[in-house]
């Protein structure tokens, strides 16, 4: 009995505490503060602090938006993917390996020349032991998933815009953001998809 009333008291206290400090959204305060405090530097303009529709939905819902919201935005992102006009998705895997290794690009200290930064977050080729683990391993990408046209399309599309597949993915939208060229994305797709690529050995 005493235990039960103590528990009730604790619950009441917790309820009171949560009433006393209502949860409010501090994002507008955060954005206003950043808009005041930041300045453009090099290629990084103040426009980078603005959310686009995908960033806004992910920020608002802690990276877990309602299904309806996610579906609609994913469709929009998917529709905006520019597929290569020549219909060919595979470039040169050797060049792809160099692009995957290159972690430069898009910071205020970069002049131009953007790499894929792929190894920062993914295991890819078997020879590179210095790889990150923010994203899944891509080693034996096509060997495990198949070499078909649909998987090729998935690989290219995912590099172009990961948010077309998983709205709040942590992966940058390399094509959508204008970071990589079509040829660079083809070369990266070849790194993952070419049967001769070390990735698939």
């Amino acid at each position: 009995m005493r235990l039960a009333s103590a528990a009730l008291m604790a619950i009441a206290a917790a309820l009171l505490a949560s009433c006393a400090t209502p949860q409010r959204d501090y994002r507008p305060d955060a954005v206003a503060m950043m808009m005041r405090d930041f300045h453009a530097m090099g290629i990084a303009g103040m426009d980078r602090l603005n959310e686009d529709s995908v960033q806004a939905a992910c920020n608002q819902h802690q990276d877990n938006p309602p299904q309806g919201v996610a579906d609609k935005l994913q469709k929009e992102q998917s529709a905006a993917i520019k597929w290569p006009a020549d219909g060919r998705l595979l470039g040169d895997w050797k060049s792809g390996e160099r692009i995957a290794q290159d972690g430069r690009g898009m910071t205020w200290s970069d002049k131009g020349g953007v790499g894929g930064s792929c190894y920062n977050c993914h295991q890819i080729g078997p020879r590179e032991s210095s790889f990150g683990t923010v994203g899944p391993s891509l080693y034996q990408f096509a060997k495990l998933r198949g070499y078909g046209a649909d998987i090729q399309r998935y690989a290219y599309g995912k590099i172009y815009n990961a948010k077309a597949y998983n709205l709040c993915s942590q992966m940058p939208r390399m094509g959508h953001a204008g970071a990589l060229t079509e040829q660079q994305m083809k070369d990266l797709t070849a790194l993952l998809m070419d049967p001769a690529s070390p990735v698939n050995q």
Partner: protein
Amino acid sequence: MKRALVLGSLAVAWAAAAQTPDPTAAEFDKFREIMEQDNPAELFEVKGEELWRARRGPKNAALEQCDLGLGPGVVKGAYAQMPRYFADADRVMDAEARIVHCMMTLQGFTYAELAKQPFSSPTRTPEPVSLVTYVAAQSRGMKISAPQDHPKERATYETGNAIFHYRAGAFDFSCASCHGADDKRIRTQPLPNFTKPEQAIRAVQGWPGYRMTGGVMHSLQWRMNDCFRQQRFPEPGYASETVSALLTYLTVNANGQVYRGPGIKR
């Protein structure tokens, strides 16, 4: 002479470590332990203490009357209890922002001159960096206890939390993109999850730190600046409220753990 010896032994040890084929975090931690017994950060601590006591600036004043939150001139334990709210500035300030404030109000320096080149290079260590190293050293061995008593301290924590999770920019990154999950790495660099108290200490521990890459002394103002650079954001103002808010979020998350003083960083 002592300095030459310290830097010489550092170079030898670093060269030995650089030859290690695939250095792991554990190996670096061992290396750091050895190095911290004769940490070059101490040179900047001494320099900072000289600067703290010297009469300088257009007003020819010392910083000894600077109120770091525990009363004018009280340095001991102050760093472990910042960021905190300061009524005279009506904002929450981290240690370096507060030192900058004191250099402006007590000594008459302008923000523009202090913010012009606020970060260390191999040939120049800005005065606030040495000063914050001195102040930090006076909290060595103390429990981190950034206050959350004033309403603005609590609001600043929440704003810092929102900044930490705010995704934007060319790569859709927030701080949490790299520091919001357990057991992740960029290349071989482990990424602490700063949303968890037991890992948030790693945002505080070792700062200000002597950074082996480039051989320079850096403070948390620099660390936050470089994170925003890698986040592909524009640049935050030096000693700005945004940086203080982010440091409030990180430090309060680390409250209760022991600060070991200025350290060594990769």
